[in-house]
């Protein structure tokens, strides 16, 4: 077996080594670089699709939440309206009730007043009648007796007494 010199130049060996590097480049490209790159790309795609999914889900959730909120606020305003209506009707009713009561009370008072006036009239009418009777009686008495000073006085006194009695 012989050895090469430390420095030896051989064209064919050089070319073979050149070809070796190219072959190894192709091997590395085909069996290491491309598969790993593909996997990285696939992972990137997967991550992106997952992000998209997450975004979609978030959007959906937000939408449904908005819907719910709208519905909730709608319910709130509705209940407010109902309460308002109820209070309004209650107010109106209470007012009408109060008004009616007032009217009624006024009616009663008026009636009472009228009755009182009527009574009074009746009473005055009675008095008048009495007065007339008394005066007629007095005149009849006057006509029966002679009139003097004393008589006069007693007559007036009697008359007054009579009036008082009749009034009582």
């Amino acid at each position, binding site marked *: *077996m012989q*050895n090469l*010199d430390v420095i030896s130049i051989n064209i*064919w060996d*050089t070319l073979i080594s050149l070809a*070796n590097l190219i*072959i190894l480049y192709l091997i590395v490209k085909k069996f*290491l670089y491309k598969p*790993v790159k593909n996997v990285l790309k696939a992972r990137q795609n997967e991550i992106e699709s997952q992000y998209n999914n997450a975004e979609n889900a978030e959007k959906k959730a937000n939408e449904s939440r908005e819907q719910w909120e709208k519905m909730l606020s709608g319910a709130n305003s509705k209940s407010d309206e109902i309460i308002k209506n109820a209070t309004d009707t209650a107010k109106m009713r209470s007012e009408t009730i109060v008004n009616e009561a007032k009217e009624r009370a006024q009616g009663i008072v008026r009636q009472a007043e009228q009755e009182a006036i009527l009574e009074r009239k009746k009473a005055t009418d009675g008095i008048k009648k009495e007065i007339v009777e008394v005066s007629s009686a007095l005149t009849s008495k006057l006509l029966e007796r002679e009139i003097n000073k004393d008589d006069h006085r007693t007559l007036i006194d009697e008359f007054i007494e009579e009036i008082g009695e009749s009034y009582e």
Partner: protein
Amino acid sequence: MKNKSRRFVLTDILYIAMMIVPVIIGIVIKTMTRPVGDGVSITGAQVYFKIPMPIQDLIISESQINSLIVMISVFGLCLYLTHGLKTRNISKRQHLAEWIIEKTDNMVSSNMGEFFISFSPFIIAMLALSGFSSLLTLLGLYAPTSDLNIVGGWAILVFILITYYKFKCGPLQYMKSFAEPVALLAPMNIISEIATPVSMAFRHYGNVLSGSVISVLIAYALGNLSNLLLGFLPGVLGDIPFLRIGIPAVLSIYFDVFSGLLQAYIFAMLTMMYVSGGFPSDLYFKRKNRKIKN
């Protein structure tokens, strides 16, 4: 993860065998064909056989066989790393594969720009071939990178790439690039153009070769020193070169591992620098944009 199918495990074993078996075969060939001899002999690769070819005989030497071994092992490694790729819940080897790809992509895009991102697998191949070739010395095999022909071939390929990218703007532009900054400097530019691959090849080859030469010298020197210092020990003990244990290993961490990997890195780095540096990117993109507009 625990419940890997039988088929998966078997393929894994096949790939691992693809990585290891060539190396073992190489070691076996080396031990069977190594000439018995003492002393230091610094020679090139061992020649197995020659094939007659025009101009020069094709020599199938240790360096050819060993670079073939490295290629098959790297092929096995690629297959092993990309076996069972998944998009989630990834295995450790996939982490490693992705780390390699991302690191080289970053390196290429920061040194050469996004335009040259397709160089990434080429740089990986170059780093792997050069690095593992240098590391073969750890197993006692001849490092193909300490053969000038091997590294020369790579350097010529790099030179072809540099010239190809310089030609991207047409041959006229290529000619003009030699006359810069003044036409008087054209001979110097041509020399420096040719010097690029030569310097790359010699730098890598010289570093790895000198590392292994120093390793051999130190091992030899330590053997003699051990004989001198411990030779008085009786019997077999005196013949054992005790100083050779351990110390050469520590030194080979620098001369074989560090230096070899560093040279691989430098070679890849220079490739990127020269290819992207020679490419007239401004002019090229200007013309491309004009073409798109028209």
